[in-house]
């Protein structure tokens, strides 16, 4: 199996911050808005280098989304930043009317998504945001897997016209994708070719999927691993091509199975080529306090769980 090396663990949010720093220099129309979380979102450099293009909104996320929508009128490309929960659930109607329905070029950038936020607990651990955002007509939804990919996605979004949701996280995780890998919105990345089962993963679960594929290989099972960083629009062609070969699929995400990547994959398969599918996702539940590792273990979002689901789905073929 193809080997991926951890180039040095980093948090995905720092990839976002690095992307913003670069965008600040490259694109004078890019502006940044933050709701009292500059350090958490890694906005420090952008704010220092471009104070005239940085907007501290205070703890007022609804106002932030509206201001971002207004800034597009005048040709700006606003990137809003706060935690995923406050980026989506708290401001859903503002995003729906002022951004999505109004077709405004706003990039909603969300850190601390999912369980890996850790000890802060369920009030902050949104597991419904992908579903909320993908249901909005015209909204692009991206969930990146490591530092390099998050940086590349941030840069790509500035060149993409239209509302978009960029989801990343808090913890330090392996950084394994090539630093020079181009980020093409809506285009899946084939990480490992295999023949027995397709593992389709997004976000922090991509590294876990690679670990799972190694373990499966040790057990004589050939797993294909696809990184879906763009959940909407979904690369249906890549999914169908792979499942035509393997005949079954495991989807893996740090999100509720309701509304997540898995559901989008299931729809694609049921419309085109039905195949057995297992879901590595949270099971219609809130999270809780704990370390990221403890939570991913308890809620079944790790390599071990992917291996189990892979064997289960192969048996269903």
């Amino acid at each position, binding site marked *: 199996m193809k080997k991926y090396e951890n180039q040095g663990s980093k948090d995905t949010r720092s990839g976002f911050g690095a992307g913003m720093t670069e965008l600040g220099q490259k694109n004078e129309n890019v*502006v940044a808005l933050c709701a009292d979380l500059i350090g958490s979102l890694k906005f420090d450099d952008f704010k220092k280098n471009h104070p*005239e*293009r940085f*907007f501290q*909104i*205070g703890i*007022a996320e*609804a*106002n*932030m*989304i*509206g*201001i*971002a*929508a*207004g*800034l*597009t*009128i*005048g*040709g*700006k490309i*606003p990137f809003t930043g706060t935690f995923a929960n406050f980026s989506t659930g708290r401001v859903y*109607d*503002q995003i*729906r*009317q*002022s951004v999505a*329905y*109004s*077709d*405004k070029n706003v990039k909603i950038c969300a850190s601390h998504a999912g369980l890996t936020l850790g000890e802060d607990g369920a009030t902050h651990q949104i597991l419904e945001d992908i579903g909320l955002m993908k249901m909005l007509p015209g909204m692009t939804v991206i969930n990146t897997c490591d530092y390099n990919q998050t940086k590349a996605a941030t840069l790509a979004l500035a060149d993409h016209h239209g509302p978009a949701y960029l989801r990343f996280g808090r913890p330090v995780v392996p950084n394994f994708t090539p630093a020079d890998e181009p980020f093409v919105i809506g285009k899946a990345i084939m990480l490992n070719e295999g023949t027995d089962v397709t593992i389709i993963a997004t976000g922090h679960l991509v590294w876990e999927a690679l670990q799972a594929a190694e373990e499966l290989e040790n057990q004589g099972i050939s797993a294909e691993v696809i990184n879906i960083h763009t959940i909407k629009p979904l690369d249906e062609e890549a999914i169908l091509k792979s499942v035509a070969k393997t005949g079954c699929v495991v989807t893996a995400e740090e999100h509720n199975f309701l509304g997540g990547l898995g559901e989008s994959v299931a729809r694609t398969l049921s419309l085109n080529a039905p195949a057995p599918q297992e879901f590595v996702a949270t099971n219609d539940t809130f999270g809780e306090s704990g370390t990221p590792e403890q939570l991913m273990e308890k809620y079944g979002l790790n390599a071990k769980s992917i291996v189990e689901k892979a064997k289960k789905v192969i048996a269903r073929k």
Partner: protein
Amino acid sequence: MTQQISNLEQFTQQVRRDILRMVHAVNSGHPGGSLGCAEFLVVLYQHVMKRNPGFDMNGINEDVFFLSNGHISPVFYSVLARSGYFSVSELATFRKLNSRLQGHPTTHEGLEGVRMASGSLGQGLSVALGAAQAKKINNDPNLVFVLTGDGELQEGQNWEAIMYGSAKNVDNLIAVVDLNGQQIDGSTKDVLNMGNVKAKFEAFDWDVLEITEGNNVEAIINGMADAKSRTGKGKPVCVLLHTEMGNGVDFMMHTHAWHGKAPSNEQLENALNQNPATLGDY
């Protein structure tokens, strides 16, 4: 000046006819607040705002306006059409299937003159703040106007925006509150008494002025000139526009009953008789 006022009054009378006929034709829509703001929007578009020919979404080097209380779309559409943004004949499509004139305004259908969807209340002031700050970055000296309802101020997002506007010295923004004292369930006092709105804005450090005769063209001209003169001085400007819901149609005034109700055939005839055509019906 007298001739100019007379022309604007004539213009407003035609807008009133448009509102009544549009709402009647589909037996739905919001005539009360639309009629109450007719004079204001006519004066704003025909006298106050600097507008460039055609329509540029980004509004570079011109004043821009946002309607936050999107339910008064009939008056907005009529004024936009009669100000040249799109054909007056298109007013006949209001609220019909496949129309660009949706029940509440939207950019989704590409209707010239509309820069933001509105209808879900309380969002326009934030959007206007963003547009005003974009003008500052662009060194564009023109102004941003926004109209909100008074009942709409019950939405909490407004107070986030009001706090922000003064804290960030957004002094190229004029926010106009349609102070008609009515909302769907009754008077604003009965539904949720907002107390002294002027004192509240002043407590948030806005420069506030009142136009007590908000259905009087000359009073609006003078009041908005005053408002413009207060911009660029470090504070956002708030205009409390005292209007009469249903203004210009006697049986629609002094009540909240016509907030979202269309007139019958007889009521339409009566209302139109009170407002003879001036510019020609669509």
